Structure formats: structure tokens, C-alpha cells
């Protein structure tokens, strides 16, 4: 029993101490292409909330740039896409990435899908949830370089009157209570070592995170 519990402790310690070790996923194509510039295109929306894609997009540029990539200003990108006749996120997501490369010179395109953006009421409690799917696609080859799916939710623990909430929604102040959660979901996608996008060429950890050293997962 003692041996069993000791090995249990060791396993837990190993898990905890490995928290910062880069885990290798299917990132071979990313490592081969080493994209330097990323074009974030307008987010696709699978929710009924009309503001969700804009809020999602607005909060992604700075953390991605701080991750070491060149990030085109998302509001300017939106204007330039509209000039190409791509006024809807759905249209942009269907365009061949190579076409976007011709227009912008970007190495990679980041497609984000808003999968959940909701407030649920459980009695007097309310819980806000956001879920995003991220796909970084090569603008040269069209291949998937990295993907992640993150969820963030908060239980406010505060009694929120659904009627007051509905009125707030009408003056659309509610989307702002989503801001910290969107920030958290983006933060996990970019910084959590088990899922994150390895650091770009302008980041000091770039060489380490793009190196072949580490527990490489066998090819299937």
C-alpha cells in the first residue's frame, strides 16, 4: 500500500512539474513552414449573438502579437476584405488561403469559430460560457498548421434578474460581461502549453518551442 501511494505521489509530482514542458502535438507542418505573419480574418459565428464575432476578433490581436507573430490590424483587414467583396465571415472562410496570401502576403490565416456564447440561468445563479475553435492554416499550402478549442465559463454567483439582463441586452451592454471570458479563452489557446500555438519568431522562446527536442508523438 505504501509503495502504491508513494508511486501515486511521484506520478502526481511528475504531472505537476511537467507543467511547462513543451508537449509535441501534430505540429510538423507548422515547424516546417515557420509562419511569421498571421492574418486574423473575421470570426465565423455559430451562435445567435450578433456581437460575438466582433468581440472575439477585437480581443485576439494583441495576445497573438505578444506571442511573437506579426499580426495585421484586424479592423483594417476587415476593410480590405470588404474591398475584395468578402463582407461576410462565411465568405472569407470559404476563400482559398492562397488567394488571401496573394492579397495580403500573410504566411498563415487564423480562422476562429464562435461555438458557444451564452448565459444560462440556474435558479438565481447565472453562468456565462464562451467556446472557440481556432484553426491556423498555411496561406501557401492551405494545410492546417495548428488548431485548438477552448472554453471559458464563469459562475457569477450573483443573483441576476433575467428581466434586468434582458433590458441590458437590449442596450447591448451585456456583451461586455463576456470580455474577461473571451480573454481567458484566447489566453488558454495561446499560452496553455498543452494546446497552445508555439511562440513565433519575434518571441524569445521561439527557438525552443519550434525545436524538434521534446517528447515527439509518434506519427500515426
Amino acid at each position, binding site marked *: 500500500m505504501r509503495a502504491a501511494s508513494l508511486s501515486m505521489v511521484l506520478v502526481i509530482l511528475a504531472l505537476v512539474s511537467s507543467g*511547462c514542458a513543451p508537449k509535441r502535438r501534430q505540429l510538423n507542418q507548422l515547424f516546417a513552414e515557420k509562419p511569421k505573419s498571421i492574418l486574423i480574418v473575421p470570426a465565423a459565428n455559430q451562435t445567435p449573438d450578433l456581437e460575438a464575432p466582433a468581440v472575439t476578433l477585437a480581443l485576439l490581436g494583441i495576445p497573438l502579437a505578444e506571442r511573437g507573430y506579426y499580426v*495585421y*490590424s*484586424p*479592423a483594417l483587414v476587415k476593410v480590405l476584405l470588404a474591398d475584395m467583396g468578402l463582407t461576410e465571415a462565411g465568405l472569407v472562410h470559404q476563400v482559398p488561403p492562397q488567394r488571401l496570401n496573394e492579397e495580403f502576403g500573410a504566411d498563415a490565416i487564423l480562422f476562429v469559430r464562435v461555438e458557444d456564447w451564452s448565459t444560462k440561468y440556474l435558479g438565481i445563479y447565472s453562468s456565462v460560457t464562451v467556446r472557440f475553435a481556432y484553426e491556423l492554416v498555411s496561406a501557401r499550402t492551405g494545410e492546417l498548421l495548428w488548431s485548438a478549442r477552448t472554453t471559458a465559463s464563469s*459562475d457569477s454567483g450573483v443573483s441576476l434578474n433575467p428581466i434586468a439582463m434582458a433590458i441590458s441586452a437590449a442596450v*447591448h451592454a451585456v456583451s461586455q460581461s463576456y470580455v*474577461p471570458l473571451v480573454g481567458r479563452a484566447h489566453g488558454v489557446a495561446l499560452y496553455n502549453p498543452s494546446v497552445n500555438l508555439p511562440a513565433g519568431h519575434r518571441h524569445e522562446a521561439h527557438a525552443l518551442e519550434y525545436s524538434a527536442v521534446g517528447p515527439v508523438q509518434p506519427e500515426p
Partner: protein
Amino acid sequence: MNGISISRGCSERVRLTPVVFVLVALALPFLSGCATVQPTYFWGSYQQAVWNRLVENNDEAALEQLHETLLASDKQPLPLGPGIRPELAYLLYQQGKHAQAVSLLEAEASAFPESEFLMSRITTEIARRQSNSAAIKGDR
């Protein structure tokens, strides 16, 4: 994160305060559990400006915030973040300030060579539109 409370007025629209942005930005590095991440760039009011452009459709406020950010960056040890100059360039172009727009685009291309392709494309497009409008005026 639960500590952040945003008051919800029913009559007035709640502004997203810089404080919230700062809290969101500060929270990011701690989520990984890894070493603290120091910012690489100076961002000034860029986050609010992007918010104003994309969510509030308030280009006027965005222009002011981007201007302020550019001016403040002179006194900062960190370099200006990517995307700020082109964003300001676009808004200045909208106001007919083409020379200022072009010089910002050129500055972005020299600070971030990755952006050179797009910056020179936009610069060329501005020059083309200028010569077109000059030609139209000449015809009159």
C-alpha cells in the same frame, strides 16, 4: 476573474473601461502557470481603438486613441506593437491625409519587414487613386 464586476445601467450604455482591458491583458500570462511573460510591445490605447472600430463602430474615438498611442510611444522603451500604424494610416487616409498615411505605412514596413508586402500594396493603391483623382480634376 470573478472579482471583475461590470455595472449594468439600463438607461446608459456601459463603456468598456481601460481597467477591464488591463485586467484581461494581465491575466493572460498567469493562465499557463509558466514564467511571467513581459510585454514585448507598447500598445497604449490600441485595444480600446480596435474595440471602438470593430464593436462600437466609433472611428472618431479610435482615431484619437491611435494618435495618442503613437505620440506616447516616443517616450516608451518598448517598440510600438504591430498593426497600430496601419490602423491609424487607414483612418487618416479616410480624412484625406494621404501623405501622413503613407509615411505611417512605410514606418510599419521598416519596423516589421513581414508587413512590407501589404504596406507597399496599400501605398501603391493610395498613389493610384490620387493620380486618378488628379486626372479627373485635370479633365474638368
